[in-house]
């Protein structure tokens, strides 16, 4: 405890006026104030502007990624695409379904955009769908086996990454029914499905949730007729939760993996996910 004396001394000390150490600043004139504020704000503006421009140049001239599974994009932009994919995957749900339309609204002239992977000579009769199981076993499935499974029709707005969309009518086996019938449950526990054309000229990778979406179809009919050659005879993928670039024509083989399978357009700078 402090003695009375000490407390008294302390009180005396507090009464002493504070010594002024600094000279009083002269009040700035209005013009000085204006100039000072202009200087500070315009300098800040200039510095931030130059920094922003530098940042833009850095991004714009950043190196293109080395082509592996993905390619063709600036490295930071590829990182951004992959991060953005993770964010938007959270919104993915089997309950979110693509809008379907009455059959009368389906296009009679179905737009045909590209022949990559389906342009060579092709023997339809010899075609078998090859499924590479994780056990190493390979299935060879004929089109008749697939047609024997429950058929599902879908009339939906097909969306191309280029920007056009068209209401189209497709029918085939739902991918989930296909998985069920051929007992591919162990395979679908992996992260990705890969599909390639028989000539391996076109290939896509799908994340498993999108592949297992109830509207994903292995299609063998278009407008109630077997697929024409330029639409991927005899079997193609119709996956409404992806852009057209993932809707592979003429499926030759299907495989499963935990790594992203190779993907034709992801190698050319496009988003790997390309989900809708």
């Amino acid at each position, binding site marked *: 405890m402090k003695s009375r004396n000490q407390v008294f001394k302390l009180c005396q000390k507090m009464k002493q006026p504070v010594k002024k150490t600094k000279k009083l600043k002269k009040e700035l004139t*209005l013009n000085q*104030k*204006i100039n000072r*504020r*202009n200087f*500070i*704000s*315009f300098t800040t*503006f200039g510095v*931030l*502007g130059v920094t*922003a421009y530098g940042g*833009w140049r850095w991004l714009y001239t950043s190196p293109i990624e080395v082509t592996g599974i993905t390619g*063709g*994009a*600036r490295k930071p*932009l*590829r990182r*951004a*695409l992959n991060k*953005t994919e993770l964010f*938007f995957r959270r*919104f*993915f*749900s089997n309950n*979110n*379904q*693509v*809008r379907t339309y009455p059959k009368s609204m389906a296009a009679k002239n179905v737009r045909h955009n590209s022949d990559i992977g389906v342009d060579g000579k092709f023997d339809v009769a010899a075609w078998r769908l090859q499924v590479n199981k994780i056990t190493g076993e390979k299935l060879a499935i004929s089109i008749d086996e697939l047609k024997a499974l429950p058929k599902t029709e879908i009339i939906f*707005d097909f*969306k*191309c*990454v*280029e*920007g*056009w*969309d068209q209401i189209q009518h497709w029918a085939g086996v739902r991918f989930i029914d296909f998985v069920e019938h051929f007992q591919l449950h162990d395979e679908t526990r992996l992260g990705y499905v890969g599909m390639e054309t028989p000539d391996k000229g076109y290939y896509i990778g799908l994340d498993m949730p999108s592949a297992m979406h109830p509207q994903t179809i292995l299609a063998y009919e278009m407008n109630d007729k077997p697929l024409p050659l330029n639409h991927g005879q005899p079997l193609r993928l119709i996956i*409404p*939760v992806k852009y057209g670039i993932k809707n592979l024509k003429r499926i030759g083989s299907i495989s499963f993996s935990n790594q992203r399978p190779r993907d034709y*357009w992801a190698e*050319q*700078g*496009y*988003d790997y996910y390309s*989900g*809708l």
Partner: protein
Amino acid sequence: MKAIKEKHSLAMRWCHWVNFPILTIMIWSGMLIYWANDEYKITLFGHTYVQFFPDWYYHLLHIPQRLAEGMAFHFLFMWFFTLNGIFYILYTIISGEWRELVPTRHSFKEAFLVVLHDLHIRKMAPPQNKYNAAQRIAYTAIIVMGIGSVITGLAIYKPSQFYYLTWLCGGYHFARIIHFALTLGYVFFFLVHVVQVILAGWNNFRSVISGFEIVDEKPEPSIQTMPKDETAS
């Protein structure tokens, strides 16, 4: 006797100048995307008036064959555009600055008078606070347009996952048209905005960088205003 009059808050200036380059990049990358399927045009009675866009325009701006690049830029800068917009709207609401910005029930009539004044058809402009009636409408509309761009953008970016937004925008195809039209709106806004800023002069422009204007203490208004009761109805 001149004096300093505070005008724009730091937050407002920040948002304005951050938005400017971001929106420019969004419009540019949007054009890279649009090029891949450039089907929009303005046609009336069978005659096409405007075709978006002519070839010389694409080549001048080096647009062709850059779809993937355009998408990659667009889907990165969409984050900054949206976050900056959310920050601005929250700031405007919390600070109370919205009161100076949102049109009042007199604004639409007054805005017409402002336009007449600006076109030198009418001598008097209605009295105003920080923003005149035309500015209130324009600066609120541009925010609504920004929200519209984000919503139509999401509606065409993930039409399956955000199907309700796509539905709200009248379907995928129409949402895309709105998204495009809003961009034309920004360009139109920009042109008018820049002309107005040039006409308003240095004092006004400086206030968007340093925050203040210099005013005469004994104000002799540069634009003559009508007595209050003439506009109040």
